[in-house]
């Protein structure tokens, strides 16, 4: 066993439990010496690595998948078949690149859907202007 590493790991797991999507104090671009090693490690960790964090229990609810969720899944699989991404890049984008606030704050397939849109912009299949205009066009159908 690496005692020093284990101590750091357990300390880290205790610390990241304090990071929740909430406004506690103002932290606007702190000076470098205002960021502790613990904070840096917590801020930059992959947000999906939650094993061992302290948390309260949550209610288990059985929920059937909705049509938009199935459509989102199929869209993401088709993007893989077309070579736009592989499964690991998809997971990286929807579970880690989104950051902790979105990871914990958005529904599961909401993250899939946002990520499918972003990969198309990132790899220049559509421009962000085109995407914004399309979202606006579709939104107006429901006004």
């Amino acid at each position, binding site marked *: *066993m*690496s*005692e*020093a*590493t*284990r101590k*750091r*790991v*357990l300390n*880290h*797991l205790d610390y990241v439990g304090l990071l929740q999507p909430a406004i506690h104090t103002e932290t606007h671009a702190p000076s470098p010496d205002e960021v502790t090693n613990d904070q840096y490690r917590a801020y*930059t*960790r*992959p947000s999906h*690595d939650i*094993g*061992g964090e302290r948390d309260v229990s949550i209610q288990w609810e059985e929920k059937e998948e909705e049509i938009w969720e199935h459509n989102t899944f199929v869209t993401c699989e088709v993007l893989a*078949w*077309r*070579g*736009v*991404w*592989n*499964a*690991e*890049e998809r*997971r*990286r984008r929807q579970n*880690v690149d989104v950051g902790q606030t979105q990871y914990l704050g958005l529904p599961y397939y909401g993250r899939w859907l946002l990520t499918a849109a972003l990969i198309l912009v990132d*790899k*220049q299949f559509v421009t962000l202007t085109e995407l914004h205009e399309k979202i606006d066009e579709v939104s107006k159908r429901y006004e």
Partner: protein
Amino acid sequence: MSKPHYDLEHHVKKATGIGDPQCFKGEAGDPRFKVGDKVKIRDLPDVFYTRTQAYTRGCEATVVRLVYETPPAEDEAWDNTENVEWMYSLLFKQKDLWPEYADAFSQDTLETEIPEHWLEPA
């Protein structure tokens, strides 16, 4: 700035009709560890991405199975598939992972898969 060119077919060509990770079989070379070996999880950086759980760092485990060959998640997440590694299924004692784990359940274990570059001999 010019637009990058993405090869949209290389993974499809490699995996179609074979499957992934089966399409990487034979590319990892000789495994560094064998079933029964004691290993320790390295304390590597995890900035940007990893799937090696933070709670395993520095902990010892036993190799129970060589599962398959694949690029490690850190590489495949950016579609870098040149460096293929063995994935090991590792058995941890729960008491080693969690200091507060009850003595009454001291025989409990946890099994998880971790790529070779995260491991060193215990």
